[in-house]
């Protein structure tokens, strides 16, 4: 049970504010914002998603730079409130098409309509985009997605600060198409976030894939859908969850550690033929989340050398090799490396003829940054950096720099080899042939090489 719900902009302005129970004293939005802004004096530490000020519990999630906040005085289930906030954000996105401060401000009356039906006196009533349709009467004022600040090609998959995958679809579930007719289409995205840690000698210390099969359906009449996955897919690792590399690598079978499913998914024939059956509700939702620690081939190999090169000088050589086929291209690759604290200057040398690459030395936090617009499969890129120090280094300089971390997005590539073999739409008419989009994308969650 929550007491208030509000959305704040990055600057702390109320965008919507709904008080359901009148139990929390006035000024809660200001108290919240001040607390988050100045969590720790040095500003180094982020405020946790849940904290208590004077007996009021504040919950928040950050979505597209906005704070979605709930307050309560009661000892509630934290997961319930955070899931709810996330879900409210998703429902609003379903209606507005695009979630941004601008679209919020243009449509706040619609948002209030939604909020009144989603929560009554602090208790959740429904978060189903479909059910809500019959209670919402305002037409969304659609914000042109193209008018938003220029986003990189991968940004369409980005949301929030952990690169929460969204989809490219920016269509409202209620808005009418310009032509008056709705286009029949369904989107299925297989989004994988990978985490790999390489030891200083290049071994894989840990690796994990966290995947989601996300669906967004614009089909009329809610037909049943069957989604077939790899036949050799198996779930649960026999003999406990000890990391067990090498045993199954290359054998072809995809072994998930564990997974969970959306409520609408029926698993009647899942054990037999790995098929998920569901009647997709309106809006965007995850059909299945999965987790895998089975060994996979990391898409990038990172090689980093740091050596002293004379008095108060050192050289860094960074090599990135793309270990995927040449018909695949990674986007918006960023390589970062913290340098020694007493580095005062860094000069960079890219390979001859390099295009779409940018280098930077962040003076404030002594960090090296290397951006690559794209990397084509099979290619290797090298960066050399000459560092100048303000003082003599005492010990081992490799101990005081690094680790190298990488972020990237690779469209049409998935590391787990989990696949949607087919997407069947049950509908009687033979002429009915809606658009089906099945897309794969892999992103780095935490991709780190120690030096």
């Amino acid at each position, binding site marked *: 049970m929550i007491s208030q719900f509000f959305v704040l902009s990055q600057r702390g302005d109320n965008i919507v504010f709904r008080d359901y129970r009148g139990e929390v004293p006035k000024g809660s939005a200001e108290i919240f914002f001040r607390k988050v802004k100045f969590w720790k004096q040095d500003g180094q530490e982020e405020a946790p998603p849940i904290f208590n000020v004077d007996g009021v519990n504040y919950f928040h999630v950050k979505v597209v730079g906005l704070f979605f906040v709930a307050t309560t005085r009661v000892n509630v289930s934290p997961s319930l409130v955070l899931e709810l906030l996330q879900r409210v954000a998703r429902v609003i996105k379903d209606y507005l098409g695009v979630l941004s401060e601008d679209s919020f401000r243009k449509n706040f009356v619609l948002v209030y309509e939604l909020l009144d039906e989603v929560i009554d006196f602090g208790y959740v009533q429904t978060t189903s985009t479909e059910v809500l349709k019959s209670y919402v009467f305002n037409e969304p004022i659609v914000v042109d997605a193209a008018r938003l600040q220029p986003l990189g090609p991968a940004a369409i998959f980005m949301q929030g600060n952990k690169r929460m995958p969204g989809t490219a679809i920016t269509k409202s579930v209620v808005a009418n198409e310009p032509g008056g007719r709705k286009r029949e289409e369904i989107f299925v995205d297989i989004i994988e976030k990978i985490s790999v840690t390489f030891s200083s000698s290049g071994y894989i210390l840990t690796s994990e894939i966290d995947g989601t099969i996300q669906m967004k359906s614009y089909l009329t009449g809610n037909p049943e859908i069957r989604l077939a996955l790899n036949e050799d897919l198996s779930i649960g690792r026999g003999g406990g969850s000890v990391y067990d590399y090498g045993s199954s690598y290359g054998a072809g079978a995809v072994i998930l550690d564990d997974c969970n499913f959306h409520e609408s998914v029926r698993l009647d024939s899942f054990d037999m033929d790995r098929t998920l059956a569901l009647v997709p509700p309106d809006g965007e939702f995850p059909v299945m*989340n999965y987790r895998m620690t089975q060994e996979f081939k990391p898409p990038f190999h990172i090689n980093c050398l740091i050596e002293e090169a004379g008095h108060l000088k050192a050289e860094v050589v960074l090599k990135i090799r793309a270990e995927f086929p040449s018909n695949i291209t990674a986007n918006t690759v960023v390589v970062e490396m913290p340098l020694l604290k007493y580095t005062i200057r860094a000069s960079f040398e890219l390979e001859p003829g390099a295009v779409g690459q940018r280098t930077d030395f962040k003076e404030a936090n002594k960090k090296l940054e290397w951006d690559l617009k794209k990397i084509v499969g099979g290619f290797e890129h090298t960066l050399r950096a000459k560092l100048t120090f303000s003082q003599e280094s005492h010990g081992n300089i490799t101990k005081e720099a690094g680790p190298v971390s990488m972020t990237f997005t690779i469209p049409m590539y998935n590391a787990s080899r989990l696949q949607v073999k087919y997407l069947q739409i049950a509908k009687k008419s033979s002429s009915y042939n809606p658009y089906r989009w099945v897309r794969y994308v892999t992103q780095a969650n935490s991709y780190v090489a120690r030096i």
Partner: protein
Amino acid sequence: MAPPAQSQRSQSPSQPSGKSEVSDLKLQLRQLAGSRAPGVDDSKRELFKKVISYMTIGIDVSSLFGEMVMCSATSDIVLKKMCYLYVGNYAKVNPDLALLTINFLQRDCHDQDPMIRGLALRSLCSLRVANLVEYLVGPLGSGLKDSNSYVRMVAVIGVLKLYHISASTCVDADFPSTLKHLLLNDSDTQVVANCLSALQEIWSAEASTSEEASREREALINKPVIYYLLNRIKEFSEWAQCLVLELVTKYVPSESSEIFDIMNLLEDRLQHANGAVVLATVKVFLQLTLSMTDVHQQVYERIKAPLLTLVSSGSPEQSYAVLSHLHLLVMRAPYVFSSDYKHFYCQYNEPSYVKRLKLEMLTAVANESNTYEIVTELCEYAANVDIPIARESIRAVGKIALQQYDVNAIVDRLLQFLEMEKDYVTAEALVLVKDLLRKYPQWSHDCIAVVGNISSKNVQEPKAKAALIWMLGEYSQDMQDAPYILESLVENWDEEHSAEVRLHLLTAVMKCFFKRPPETQSALGAALAAGVADFHQDVHDRALFYYRILRYNVSVAERVVNPPKQAVSVFADTQSSEIKDRIFDEFNSLSVLYQKPSYMFTDKEHRGSLEFADELGNLSIGEAADNVVSSQRVEENDKDLLLTTTEKEETRGSSNNGSAYNVPYDSSTSVFASQTQIESAISNPTTAGHSQQASFGIDDLLGLGMPAVPNVPSPPQLKLNTKAALDPSTFQQKWRQLPIALSQELSLSPQAVAALTAPQALLRHMQSHSIHCIASGGQSPNFKFFFFAQKYEESSNYLVECIINTSSGKAQVKIKADDQSTSQAFSTLFESALSKFGTP
């Protein structure tokens, strides 16, 4: 209620300042109020939108109330909704004008369209004006009977709103019993869920004054209601499922088959994508199996994977909430997670609050087989850019060192830290090395060699400096330079700002003096002089005390200041086990995130329906019937202790962590059997004990001098009270407070081993020797017992923990006693009683 009426915030230039705009709006609204011109609704919409946007950013638009109400006569539903929103926000501050709205809201409550009926009813109940409640009862009554489920849904919550405005009106209209009827009969699950929320809130609030209400609240947790809700669980929305599951955690099944039925029914809820549903299910599983050690263990194994999946899917905020719960479970049963340690490695981009949890989890799960890898990983973090985390990583390494038996490799790592030449790393490592030496003095040689190389000038942090000084004093005989380093520190006395460091310096110089007098004498003189002149009271007092005791007798001073020390075996835990149990009872609530029980952060009236433990706790003193409840609790609380002894068998046995919880029937019955055993063991003596004590009391008062039992010189042999009574909570409290008086290992005869097939066999035997059991558990070959006994005619207690391994035929016995002097006598008695076990 929205925005503060008088906003304190300075308005930014882009936002309207208020006054003139509001009066402008007032004028425009007035013009439109009576108009029936075509297109007027569109203009109204624009104006209404403006009003609501002002309201949102905190401009007071309450002065428009009259105009807004005048404009509300419309059939346009969008307008209506905006008007309802406005009215709901300002009715409370305009109670007189609110009366104006009653009319049109009441009319709308009879509209053709169920949507309008619902909306109007919701707005009507949201006015929050006490003198308007009379207008609510009628529409609410018909709303609850409405044929449309949307209206009923709104009406049920409406009843709750009415209760908060005027509790008596709500109760007098008999609405709670109507809700109770709907709860069990309505076809719509959201109506049912709302009834459940409303009734829980109403009856919890009423329970403090009305016994009937508290009975009604208890009645929600009875078998028919629980089964009715559970059987429909999949029809409920995911949010309502959480509500139902929370209710189920309070239900106490009457037999173990019920427990398995419920768990099998809810098994697939663990695969739900909504973390709140999964955690609520986990709570049900954990609570239901508390009294069944082996199944409880299986539950841990079962819930591991789903929780890990939730941690890695979803937003960072959601994963944090789940991780906090996983943290709690890991701290309770680290060995269950010891092979999953890699999941608790920190990622470089995680926020500090996540890293901190993970570091604690890594520390907890470290055991013989994974320590090397965990410590290697932690050492990587020590060079982290995030300095607070780097520090905590080093501390984690130290903690692992203190909880392990084989610390060889770890000591080397710690010493490497000292050589890293980063101030904060050195500082943390020094503190750790000090603690390590207090536990493992045998490492002093290696450590001192490295510590000796550290220049005291490079150590600035008080804690680290104090640690270094402590080591200089403690090991001054092994450190060549110790007296001179201390001397130079004393010379800089005035520059030392930390009193803690000065205190340590005084003591260290003293210790050094006892070991190497000629070299230290001058430093000691200077230190005492400086100390006596110190402004800090404690420093001054200590210096004076040292000075006087030295004058009195140097060898006495040495015995006081530098006595031979025993190695510290266990460093005290910061949180008591009682608090930890409280938090565990409040699983799936904020208590887990804050790591505090709810009474520490909520006011009484807001603790809500989660508070169940409270009532259980209050029952612990009193009659026999209550003792039964709390004796179960002791067993529950002790579960994790029990788990540790049976751990090895369990992990072997529970590899079949499949979906079915079909535990061999005999094992579960034996658990229950042992419980009833305990109950009877406790309940009878309690009453008997009371009456006996009472009669003695009277006799004393009368001064009649009972048959001279007390006058007989006490026999060398200890006599125990055959009808001793001790309630479990006192037992727990005493167990925590008292030191271990005796600890020994006894051997069991082969006959005893053969007889010990189930715990209760030994219970009966020991009882015949006046040693009573208060809790027991375990399975062959590991059993664990808590016994107590009382001295005859004195309320002096003996507490015993006895762990028996039948395969080795050994019993580990720990004895605690109120009266330490007789513990040896009791031990002899206990041993002889135990040795007779199994002999016919």
